[in-house]
């Protein structure tokens, strides 16, 4: 019961936050909606017993990435008045219809699908359990991520330094 209530609470906030990101005219409001969505997502992770993921969601996404977004919005002087001209009505209608169609399709799929029952181990989601999977089973993806982060560093410097 508690779980169901919490699930619906987090789910509604997550979807509303997502809608807010798309619909808000002021980019600042969009970013704050994203923050709400991030927190709700962390709550959903918690309900799925993925505790480490929930904490990291708050630390990395809400704590670092969103702050970067806010910084960019503030520094770029993107007030609501400077927002791009809104697309013509036909485009909006087509986009809305497409999104609704996709949502309907996915809902039908999810409702009709039979998901294989997951049997997580008792310590699932704990830091140690995640670490064991990450460092023992997923060694190769883990090391590949170091290269990916390196590429991000190099790319950021190359793009920002501009004039070669």
């Amino acid at each position, binding site marked *: 019961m508690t*779980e169901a209530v919490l699930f619906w609470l987090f789910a509604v906030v997550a979807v509303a936050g997502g809608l807010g990101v798309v619909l808000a005219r002021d980019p600042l409001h969009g970013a704050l909606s994203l923050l709400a969505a991030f927190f709700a997502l962390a709550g959903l992770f918690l309900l799925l017993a993925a505790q480490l993921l929930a904490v990291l969601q708050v*630390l990395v996404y809400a704590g670092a990435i969103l702050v*970067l977004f806010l910084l*960019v919005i503030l520094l*770029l002087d993107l007030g609501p008045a400077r927002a791009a001209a809104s697309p013509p009505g036909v485009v909006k209608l087509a986009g809305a219809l497409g999104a609704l169609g996709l949502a309907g399709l996915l809902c039908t799929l999810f409702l009709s699908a039979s998901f294989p029952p997951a049997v997580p181990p008792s310590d699932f989601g704990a*830091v140690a359990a995640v*670490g064991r999977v990450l*460092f023992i089973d997923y060694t190769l993806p883990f090391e590949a991520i*170091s290269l990916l982060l390196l590429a*991000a560093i190099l790319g950021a410097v190359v793009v920002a330094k501009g004039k070669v």
Partner: protein
Amino acid sequence: MLAVSQLGSWLPIALLFLVAAGLALALASVSALVGPRRARGVHDESFECGSEAIGSARERFGVKFYVVALLFIVFDVEGVFLYPWAVLFRELAWPGLAAMGFFVATLAIGLVYVWKKGALDWEH
């Protein structure tokens, strides 16, 4: 799904969030209800006395702010991978040290590159 009993252990954190949100709301509403309302004229300016404000506070800033922010996120993500490794340090032993050693060494080279390149230099 998480058992309800386990969920209970997160109650203090949920309470903390509630108190934080409640406190912010309460303070904002108290100040709105009780505070004096003189939002006009000279009170709207950045400095009520002294120098006049010039231009808007929203201006284009140098790209170096973004570089530092981006690099922060990259190394933040690196730090995230260190948590579970630190918890399991003894259990993982040498293979774990080797795996993390390679990971950190790669990013350390990235750090040396960034450092020597001057991307962290403010005056550069």
